[in-house]
């Protein structure tokens, strides 16, 4: 399944946020990928996410594919929604 969102945390997908995301995505059986424009990356790879260089306000598309794709999607979305705990 696919879902488009806009990056809403101030620092974007920087190292700390990417670390959190990778640790989360590696718990799922499903493949998780994120694309920005033409560029699509494996969201289980820290290097992949960093190479996306997604900053505040950028639109990205998340795709989950596999047995637990719905669960994976909702978890990933809620991490983005929580702004990676940045502002707390």
């Amino acid at each position: 399944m696919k879902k488009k969102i806009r990056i809403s945390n101030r620092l974007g997908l920087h190292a700390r946020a990417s670390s959190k995301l990778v640790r989360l995505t590696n718990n799922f059986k499903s493949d998780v990928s994120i694309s920005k424009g033409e560029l699509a990356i494996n969201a289980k790879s820290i290097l992949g996410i960093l190479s996306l260089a997604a900053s505040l306000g950028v639109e990205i598309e998340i795709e989950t594919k596999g047995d637990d794709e719905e669960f994976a999607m909702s978890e990933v979305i809620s991490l983005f929604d929580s702004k990676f705990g940045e502002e707390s």
Partner: protein
Amino acid sequence: MSIEKNGIAISPGFSVGNALLINQAKTVVEKRKIKTSEIVMEVNRFQEAVEESKDEISNMKQNKNNEYKIEHIEILDFNILILEDEILAGEVIDTITKKQINAEWALNKVLTNKSKEFAFVKDLYMQERLADFYYIAERITKNLRGLNKNLFEIKSNTILVAHDLSPIDALKYCRNGNVNGIVTDLGGTTSHTAIIARSLGIPTIMSLLNISTSVEPGQRIYVDGYKGRVKWKVNKSEKDELNTLQSKYTSFQKNLFEFSKLSGETKDKKIISIKANIEISSEVKMAQKYGAEGIGMYRTEFLFTSKEQFPSLDEQYEDYKELFKENLFNEVTIRTLDIGGDKIQDYSHLENNPALGLRGIRYSLVNIDIFKTQLNAIFKVIESEKKKIRILLPMISNIDEIDKSLLVIDEVRKNYSIDSNHLSVGVVIETPSAVLLVEEISKKVNFISVGTNDLIQYTLAADRTNETLENIISPYQPSVVRMLNLISDKVPANTYISICGEMANDINCLPLFIAMGVRELSMNYYSIPRIKSAIHDLSFNDCVETVQHCLNLTTHEEIKNELSQLIRNKMKGYDSMMDYEV
């Protein structure tokens, strides 16, 4: 088709060997082809090194003694994530398998590509994380080494091919005598690595741009350290040509070595002592091999700047003692620290113009403890080795500096029992001011040594490191020739004059020095046989005549023509020699 690259000739000689590719980020990485049968083993080796690196970082995290802040823990976590990254590991394993290349190199290659991908990321914080990649690469590389320590053994007939080579690595690799040549992308004549390569007599070429990415490991490479030319992938006919060149070089060398055994004697029996300038004490061996009759100048700057701190008395003592190893020489000349504000780690006193700043004797007299330590080490060596040392004081511009220096020398000397003829003190004449005072200076010291490099720079007020001034910075400038003439006119009879600096090994300048009646020339050891052979073809009278003529000329081209004409007419085998002009 053969491939050829030209760079800066750093250390002379001609050699052939097999390329050993080494790359230097912070750690040195070598490139090595692996067999199909070795792929599985190489992949395992990589994976084990990654696991080991992960364990190390996890242990760091858990170590109770380290009170890590939350940011530090996050960085460690980030590093672990990179190590666990499937993409990274996947690409490295892919590279090992497809390119059949060793794990260290594959890792290095993947990370270099990754860092290029990240180069466009403007975020500063993210940019800084790039440093973590290298940190991780180093850790994995280190562990790869630990798993297979034999990887770094240097086979015989090796040509080191590197992007850049640190002095420490140069020494490490060349120690077992299996390195025939060094070629690098970066570096220049005055780099410490260049100094070491010359001291070890290894043909070396630097500034070859992308040699390290052009050559394949194990490739047969031809290094011409005279012309600064590297060749590889040569075909049969070129190979024959190069072999002919090599044997021509070998016989040329043999001839030169015949000359190295001669004394520096002109046709009409005037004798000039030919000595070597050295930058590290272990160079004495090469100096002796090339026919040096002594050390005319040991520059101590490398000793002082190659470590974080200045060397202690004991360290200096051990180093100076090396000069007399194997009894190669009975007398050596140590120039006291000739360091300028530009070379000193402490940048609190940055000078606008270091060449005209607190350098040489000026620095020593202000930092009197450093000066005294150096003198103590020198006297200690004279005392224990019972050998002769000449102390050379650099950058003297007035009499006061000489008086003050001599007082310090006397004061320190009192603590040692030294035979009076085992010590002499001289001054480098390298400022126009010292030239004008040379009569008085000569009366105060045992000898003078004309430092031509700086004398040219200060006479013409032209920075010798400024390439745009190349035309002005010429030893043939009328003002330079007249400066030299002034020195020989003013000094009292029988003053012992030595010449050091690049002019000493410039064949065309020889007539100037012979006519001046200098007693000693001190130069790079590898120029010695050539200069000795040239002296043998010249006579004092010929030189005086030519130089008299030069003193009336007004442009450097005219003077150069005049001098080189004499050399061309008098020197036997001039043409074949010029083939290998250093």
